[in-house]
């Protein structure tokens, strides 16, 4: 790493950090560089990886790729206002395919698998193992079972959250809150790690103050 590169990197790093103080010219400059560089980065990446790598290289062997290229061409027609509406076709294609794919993937992985995973014996460590669980496992089993059920109750739309149903929904939201709390804790952990990594760059790699 030569001096110029290091100082450039540090200059940009501190420019972004300066936003914490307030919106200022240094931040605006780094922001502008960031927008320009990243937009260009994606243009280059998508050109070489997607257009060149997927289409240009294989267009001879895979005739179906021309359909994709045709859709891409329709997309570009937006630049000509008169025929711009044709770009709805590739959009319609993408939306249709996404819906179809997600419908089945989520149905299988999110609904079926998770429902099946919740079906478990409460007093045992596994199915068919007999009456073998200790107290802690039984508690855990009950909590998972109960939490999943009440959590689902919360999401019901067609019933007002009142009476026994309301109690269920209330307990459900408690479980959701614990989940969010755990997520919050883990997110804090993650964010702090990233900051530590960045500070390690500034004081370690750049200034050589820490080992």
């Amino acid at each position, binding site marked *: 790493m030569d001096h110029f590169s290091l100082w450039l990197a540090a200059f940009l790093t501190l420019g972004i950090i300066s936003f914490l*103080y307030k919106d200022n010219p240094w931040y605006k400059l780094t922001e502008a560089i960031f927008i320009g560089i990243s937009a260009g980065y994606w243009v280059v990446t998508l050109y070489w990886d997607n257009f060149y790598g997927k289409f240009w290289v294989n267009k001879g062997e895979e005739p179906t790729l021309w359909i994709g290229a045709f859709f891409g061409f329709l997309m570009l027609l937006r630049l000509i206002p008169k025929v711009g509406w044709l770009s709805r076709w590739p959009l319609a294609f993408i939306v249709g395919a996404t819906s179809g794919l997600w419908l089945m993937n989520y149905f299988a992985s999110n609904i079926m698998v998770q429902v099946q995973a919740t079906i478990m014996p409460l007093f045992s460590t596994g199915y068919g193992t007999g009456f073998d669980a200790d107290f802690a496992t039984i508690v855990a089993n009950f909590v998972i079972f109960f939490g999943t059920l009440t959590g689902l109750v919360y999401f019901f739309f067609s019933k007002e959250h009142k009476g026994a149903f309301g109690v269920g929904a209330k307990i459900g939201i408690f479980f959701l809150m614990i989940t969010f709390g755990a997520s919050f804790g883990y997110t804090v952990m*993650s964010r702090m790690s990233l900051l530590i990594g960045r500070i390690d760059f500034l004081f370690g790699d750049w*200034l050589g*103050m820490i080992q």
Partner: protein
Amino acid sequence: MSTKVKEILAVVAITIFCLVFYIGKINGWETIEFSFTVSMIVISLLVLSLVWILILTIKGNLIERRIVFLFVGIAVTLPLFMGISQKISSSPEVVSLYESVDALPAGSKVLISFDYDPPSAPELQPMAEAFIQLCFEKNLKVITMGLWPQGPQQANLAFEKVFSSEKLKGRKFEYGVDYVNLGFQTGNEFVVQRMGSSFKSMFPTDYVGNAYNDLPLVKNIKNFSNIDYCFNLSAGFPGTVEWIQIGVDRFGVLLGAGNTAVQAPQIYPYLNAGQLTGLLGGMNGAAEFEKLTEIPGKGTKFMLSQSFSHMVVIAFVLIGNVAFFMSGRKSMLEGNEE
């Protein structure tokens, strides 16, 4: 003195500070490490300033965002200079990951997918290094790839680091025989799906352009059936969830995962359902894994800062709430600066 002048002075001061230490670094100055006494003094100062913030807040002045920012910056930076070591525990999901790798016979082929980019490296790079080193220590063969464009680069960095480590310094590792970096391919989860039928169709060449069939390690690998273990380092989409849905659920691979802490909670239901052999979550997961494998690295080194930062966040939540309850709930619900 106007604010503008103060600001300019601050920038100049920071620049001079940086220049001095940079020149110092070039001239070979020693790194700084606080002694135990100094560390304790620093810690007490931090605690005292928290108390001060608490008092201010109770008085009804919600301190400015910027002061919170400054405090966090200091509380995370200073521990990096301290040489205090801590006892690291080991969670069951980390142990089970270690055990499943430990159980692989020598010569087994391990596929590591690097699905992250440099911004997430502080959490995931230590895991990558420890995992690869463990593989080499156990004489396993390592194949790397990436669903994120920058992944393979991170893999190369990890290899470099591992080869220069103390334990493996004497040994020779040959590219193409002991390890291969297949590179990146676009297509997100579809890449995994197509690898189910053929690796070669997705990676006709490796990262640096060698033909798939010229690499002795992989040329006989057709698809997942020739892979003994998969490890996925993931920072988002595409990542562990996609590997589970396709790799595990459709092709039956044995999968372990290293995740950023943000992602980890969503992975637990899969862990419970037995779709994963183990999970490293965040920097703490990295540190625990480093302890189990006896390969201390950055995960362990950063743990003190991590501890501090958690304490600071907890302190802030508590201070905010104490003030909230003491000064009547209503008036504090809205932030009151800017």
